[in-house]
């Protein structure tokens, strides 16, 4: 998985990376699910989402919170993700539906926050994200 944990006293703080900006956004989604849910199952559904992208950092938080909403309302767990970054984020997410008899919730994430939020590019695209847990 393309993320590492950074130190935070209360919440979960990660640095996620990707070869391209598109991959960075997709990896952020997959990282969040990796923190929340144990294991992976076969793809059952494909969900398409659009998120306004006037500001890329805001769009990153909005996208992650959209996925949290999907997870908590219908149990959608994303295992593959493609994101096109333009005036809107155009997202195609493949995944399955959480089943408490088969799957295990590792950690309940309340929200993706703006704390430390920064998208930058060095050898890769990287973003620092704090999740409230």
């Amino acid at each position: 998985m393309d993320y590492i944990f950074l130190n935070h006293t209360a919440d979960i703080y990660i640095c996620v990376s990707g070869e391209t900006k598109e991959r960075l956004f997709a990896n952020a989604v997959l990282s969040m699910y990796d923190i929340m849910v144990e294991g992976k199952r076969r793809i059952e559904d494909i969900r398409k989402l659009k998120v306004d992208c006037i500001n890329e950092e805001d769009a990153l938080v909005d996208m992650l919170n959209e996925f949290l909403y999907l997870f908590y309302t219908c149990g959608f767990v994303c295992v593959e993700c493609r994101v096109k970054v333009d005036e809107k984020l155009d997202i195609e997410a493949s995944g399955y539906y959480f089943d408490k008899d088969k799957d295990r919730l590792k950690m309940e994430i309340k929200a993706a926050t703006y704390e430390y939020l920064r998208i930058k590019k060095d050898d890769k695209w990287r973003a620092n994200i704090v999740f409230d847990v």
Partner: protein
Amino acid sequence: MKIVKISPFIYDIEREGDMLVPARMFTDEVLLERIKQDRTIEQLINITHLPGIVKRALLMPDGHQGYGFPIGGVAAFDVEKGVISPGGVGYDINCGVRSVALSVSLSEMKSKLEEVMKALYLRIPKGMVSDAAIYPVRGKELDNILTCGARMAVKKGFGKEEDLERIEDGGCLVDADPSMVSEEARERGGKELGSLGSGNHFLEMDVVDEIYDGDVAHVFGLEEGQMVLLVHTGSRGLGHQVCGDYIKKMRSTDYGITVPDRELISVPILSEDGKEYFSAMCASANFAFANRQIISFKAVETIGEVLKRNVDYNLVYDVCHNIAKIEEHMVDGKKMRLCVHRKGATRAFPPRHKLTPSSFKEVGQPVNIPGSMGSYSYICVGTKEAMEESFGSICHGAGRIMGRRKALKSFKKDVLEDLEKRGIVILSPSVRSLLEEVPGAYKDIEEIISIVEGANLAKKIVRLRPVGIVKG
């Protein structure tokens, strides 16, 4: 940054640069060195930049780094000129702690403890509940919960009328407006009413272990050897979504407010945006009051079923620790209407305050301060000094000193075995979530309470010793 020691338990940060007011930390020398190691102090100073802040920004002794406000942060804003900030309340709106005194003694509980805890573990929904919450609601019923809070829960049979007086603001914030809560928040949270959640949320069985003030303890309905139930949870996904919705909405507003941290995004309290957030926040808080009411009622019922007798209870008190409240306070000899943000801090009103419930009028409001998992918890009482020094606020618990990841790396299962050897029954869906919450990841509650008492913010009344824990 200049930190000045005012007393062994009070340290001030002098006003400089863009700070509108100074900041004050209720801490001691040892804890001060700890909080210097992360961004706690930077986050506290950031609050002092917000328009309309009065007197000073405050950090409680259990304070630590959060997002926006530090956890343990308290700030009051002039209602006329000040701002309201969702980041000063947090995503878990009206997360709080309820203490319930049971008509059960430790001697009766002892032989059935394991059975009781197992029954509670099975009957009280935790983690991701899907459709398994105690009282999932939607539509008009959800509106009623958002409008009336614990009052509606009692009306639906979860508790007694007299419980309501022993909940902060009677368990119902009257400024709530369900129409300000989005469909997404309703969908996310409605089905979770009557569920504990996970993380640091818990349900705990304690025994009154030591009494420091018998007269006040008697007024609180507590005696040595008596069993007490503690419930720590909040507004579940509904509150999380409301906070996120309003931060997103405030992003597109332009009130010319510059904030040093985007998580501190704020709007004037009296603006349409401010009023809408406040109404939605109050509705979420009502959801949380109802949630704790339903859980504690179900827990008492479950205990009675295991003990095979009718177990009576008396609610000691239910307090919020993530909230913004409109309150009157004296500032420099002048009565002011303030919007007091308490994020990881608890209201602690003194004897004879007009908002102190009539049963506690002569002694002051009870304040529940849970320790870390397996350590003592305290029920304290508010003081007159807290009104003057901290807008009637004190700490909310022990406060983390170690991140969850580090706790997982630093502690092994033997820490849990040690707790079990001490006779504490611990049940959780995951060992991992228990290891994240071990006592070593938190400050020492004894030190926190001694600072609170040393600074005259509260007085300890009873000490509670845990004997059973259900973690979400």
